[in-house]
């Protein structure tokens, strides 16, 4: 196991531990690192990594990122509930996880009865784009029919969603709150890329909800997230192909197409089929 040589991956920030976690070792971009308080070092050379603290997490970078960790405006709103949902290890490429998070067409099949149900399977047209001014991928005007949009609603309705990809290894969902239609719930999924096909994923939520218990909110997000695990661990190849002809997208995959094009433009190799050769079959 060795550190990637991919400069795009090296020059980014990644969560590696919760603040105040016990000292320990973990993997980042193929390299074992040691965490002790706010200090992060390579286990092999002892070299210190740059660190930052945000949202109760310790971030680290092997390189010199041009940008700071992206912002979440919602984190500054005092009436929001901040709900960290834990750390989950998946045997999957972090990029496959981001792409799955952007996908609505799987709701009725993977999140049956929660985010969607047959026969309401159609993905209406939405807009996806690479925003050059902020260098992010966005998908907007996304709607999807959910037969149980909230516990309080008995009739189904279309949920209104926007997606934002602020870095190659993180993704945010904004959802119109059923209880406060002029505001958006924000759910971020951050990645600690341990290897090209092993990832710790950290869901964080900033919600407008004064009714549900904390445990209920965590439970809801964890169930959805774990339903996706079986998908991203069983896609072949495990790593994300960026060549347009490797897979067959449809109109519903507009956000995925924009995301892959953006990654290709950046020249990212880590976690893609252009990365280092893998031992074994996948």
């Amino acid at each position, binding site marked *: 196991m060795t550190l990637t040589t991919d400069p795009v991956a090296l020059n980014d920030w990644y969560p590696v531990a919760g603040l105040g976690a016990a000292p320990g070792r973990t993997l980042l971009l193929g390299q074992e690192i040691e965490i002790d308080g706010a200090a992060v070092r390579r286990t092999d050379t002892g070299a210190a990594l740059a660190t930052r603290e945000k949202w109760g997490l310790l971030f680290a970078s092997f390189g010199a990122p041009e940008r700071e960790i992206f912002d979440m405006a919602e984190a500054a709103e005092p009436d929001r509930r901040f709900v960290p949902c834990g*750390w989950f290890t998946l*045997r999957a490429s972090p990029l496959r996880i981001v792409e799955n998070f952007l996908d609505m067409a799987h709701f009725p099949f993977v999140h049956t009865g929660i985010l969607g149900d047959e026969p309401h399977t159609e993905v209406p047209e939405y807009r996806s784009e690479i925003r050059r001014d902020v260098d992010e991928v966005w998908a907007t005007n996304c709607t999807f029919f959910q037969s149980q949009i909230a516990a309080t609603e008995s009739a189904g309705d279309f949920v209104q969603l926007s997606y934002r990809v602020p870095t190659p290894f993180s993704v945010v969902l904004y959802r119109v709150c059923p209880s406060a239609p002029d505001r958006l719930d924000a759910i971020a999924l951050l990645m600690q890329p341990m290897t090209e096909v092993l990832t710790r994923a950290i869901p964080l939520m900033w919600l407008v909800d004064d009714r549900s218990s904390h445990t209920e909110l*965590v439970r809801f997000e*964890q169930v959805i997230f*774990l*339903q996706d695990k079986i998908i991203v661990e069983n896609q072949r190849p495990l790593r994300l192909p960026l060549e347009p002809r490797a897979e067959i997208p449809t109109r519903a995959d507009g956000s995925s197409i924009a995301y892959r094009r953006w990654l290709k433009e950046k020249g990212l190799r880590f976690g893609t089929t252009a990365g280092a050769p893998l031992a074994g079959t996948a």
Partner: protein
Amino acid sequence: MSVPVLWTYDLDEACYAARLTAALAGAEVTLRAVDVVPGAETGSAAFRALSPMGRVPVLVDGKVVLTQTEAILTDLARRGERGAALLPDTPEALDWLIFAARDLSAAGRARAAALFGTGDARAAGEARAALLVLEDRLTAQGLRGAGFVAGNTPGVADLALFPGFALSRDWGLGHEAFPALRLWARRIRMLPGFVGMPGLPAFP
């Protein structure tokens, strides 16, 4: 009979076995979600007062508190209107129920290691060995025309064993080498009232 409270965590396979048993037996329970990850609520003083080993599931009915999964499954079967047939009333049924509790418990530890980093990664080898033994059993049962681990009909032992196999892909063990368990799991999934859990593919 009063309605008991089942303390449960949705991502835990033993809690799932309890919910599955309650659903198939038709036993009414009040679910109480526990924030195991990341809240570590099972380690809290309040939870330890209920369950001294700090484990879910827990089944509480008045002063009676059950903290051992197999006792909980059996009690839920006893309570449900369709549950009598599930009770482990033969020596073999009890034997396989204890196999689930002892030998196949490695599957839960392997899964916790893979998912949360809190279990025992070496448990995967033990869990695979236990599943091979179970595969042998269901192979022989299948040839004898008995679809379940201790007979022609499902029992609490099947439900206690089911998550250990059905969720094995969570810790990296595919189902390719277990044809008898694959067919057995399908039979369980087709039982009226079956409920799933995250990690099990949806079923038509």
